[in-house]
């Protein structure tokens, strides 16, 4: 059963049937899925949810598929917990982490959007899927597409981290490394997409694909006991995640699942690629494209597709934005690892570093509930950490060699619990 009425232009409001349409033919605005919320109300209840499997598909009524899910049955419902130790360092009372660094199967939140996109692509009858990606999306389309038996074309910038390239190649898609920035890859893919009959998940399937991100927001509210936090700090690349978290909370409020917590959303970007943060700080109407230069390659989108809507979502929520330098990103990755035991990728470092600044500036109050959106895994982006973490203590295979080293180690390291 489908709860999708059709597609609706975000700009002029024109309606379209649920088809492979991503741009309004009249005003060129982007289109968005429109749901029958009255029908959704009847089956989407807290009681019904309590009996459903812990995956992103538990929110099925609010996802744009007609039939049964085809992939991603174990995706979503990632860990959510109170981060006491990090909260202490940052000097805040109630800090939580939503941890998609352990998303099944490819260790980033992209498994959510790809599960929805591939299911939808198969419903439309596509046998080939494709994407333009900074890495995580590539991994997820490669893996979930393998499971679904789809032919896959993966387009990435040629300078991606080795971990992200290997994490696509292992699933044997066709990986195309384009000599250019992500924005150039994306532009090329728009041309390829017009010529070949493929489902480009982030282009012609985008209206459906993007809806998958809402599950990140639903889970935060559900895992908090059907309560919205007061603040959420979210990394921004194309800006879609922020807009979809905003939408998820609006929907839950409308359906009576949560009361209005006045949740403020905050955008986090790397200083070397901060078009959305700049737009928010300057309260500008137009997102000015930039040429990215940052170690946070998964966020290195200079011309963000949803930059305008992300800016709007942040400002409407009463939130703000902050950026982090490459050094701050690495320090924050280490801080998260050493306090909470989570090895996040550079984008997670951006979130933690930006949150830290916003707290220190007094923009985020220290005594309110704060959620940090950790969306990717550090094993994929090891390059910036090389030569920055020291080396293992090297010894001879003898007890005396160990004890000689141990004297120095014990002196340098005290347990936090002591």
């Amino acid at each position, binding site marked *: 059963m489908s709860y999708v009425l059709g597609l609706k232009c975000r*700009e002029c409001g024109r309606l379209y049937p649920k*088809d*492979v*349409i*991503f*741009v*309004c*033919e*009249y*005003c*060129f*605005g*982007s289109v968005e899925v429109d749901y029958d919320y009255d029908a959704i109300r009847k089956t989407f209840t807290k009681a019904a949810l309590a009996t459903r499997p812990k995956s992103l598909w538990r929110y099925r009524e609010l996802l744009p598929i007609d039939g049964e899910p085809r992939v991603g049955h174990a995706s979503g419902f990632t860990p959510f917990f109170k981060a006491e130790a990090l909260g202490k360092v940052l000097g805040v009372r109630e800090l939580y982490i939503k941890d998609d660094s352990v998303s099944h199967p490819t260790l980033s939140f992209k498994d959510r959007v790809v599960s929805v996109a591939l299911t939808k692509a198969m419903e439309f009858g596509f046998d080939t899927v494709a994407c*333009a990606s900074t890495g995580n999306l590539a991994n997820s389309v490669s893996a979930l597409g393998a499971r679904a038996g789809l032919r896959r074309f993966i387009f990435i910038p040629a300078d991606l981290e080795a971990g992200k390239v290997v994490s696509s190649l292992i699933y044997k898609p066709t990986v195309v490394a384009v000599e250019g920035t992500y*924005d*150039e890859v*994306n*532009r090329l*893919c*728009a*041309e390829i*997409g*017009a*010529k070949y*009959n*493929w*489902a*480009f998940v*982030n*282009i*012609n399937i*985008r*209206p459906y694909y993007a809806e998958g991100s809402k599950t990140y927001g639903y889970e935060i509210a559900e895992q908090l006991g059907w309560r919205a936090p007061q603040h959420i700090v979210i990394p921004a690349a*194309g800006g879609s995640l922020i807009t979809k978290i905003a939408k998820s909370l609006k929907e839950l409020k409308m359906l009576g699942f949560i009361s209005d917590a006045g949740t403020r959303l905050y955008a986090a970007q790397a200083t070397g690629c901060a078009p959305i943060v700049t737009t928010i700080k300057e309260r500008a109407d*137009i997102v*000015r494209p930039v040429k990215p230069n940052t170690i946070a390659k998964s966020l290195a*989108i200079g*011309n*963000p*597709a*949803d*930059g*305008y809507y992300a800016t709007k979502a942040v400002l409407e929520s009463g939130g703000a934005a902050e950026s982090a330098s490459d050094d701050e990103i690495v320090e924050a990755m280490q801080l998260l690892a050493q306090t909470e035991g989570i090895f996040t990728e550079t984008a997670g470092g951006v979130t933690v570093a930006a949150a830290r600044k916003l707290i220190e500036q007094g923009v985020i109050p220290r005594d309110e509930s704060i959620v940090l959106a950790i969306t990717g895994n550090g094993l994929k982006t090891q390059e910036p950490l090389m030569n920055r973490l020291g080396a293992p203590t090297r010894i001879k295979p003898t007890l005396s060699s160990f004890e000689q080293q141990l004297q120095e180690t014990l002196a340098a390291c005290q347990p936090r619990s002591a």
Partner: protein
Amino acid sequence: MPVTVRIPTPLQRITSGKGEVPCDGATISELLADLERKHPGVKERICDEQGKLRRFVNVFVNEEDIRFLQGDQTPVKDGDEVSIIPAIAGGAPAAATPMVAASEGGA
């Protein structure tokens, strides 16, 4: 003082299939007014009710986005090339032709 205005494929139905239309005017605003006189119906597609350029329509003067020049008051002179290019989902302004094929169900 004719300036060549390049028309994206989805709007060529209004311009009788023409991909380029010579228009007169000293600014983008004047050019668009002339384009509307020559081919009525174009303006409502690229401008909103207030006459402001729609958010997902980009206008370039010799490859420069007018939003980063002087908007619709950007001056134009003889021989300039003005392109109307719809943005695509994905953010990057793309050549008009592929965008259209996709939006009309080419996928």
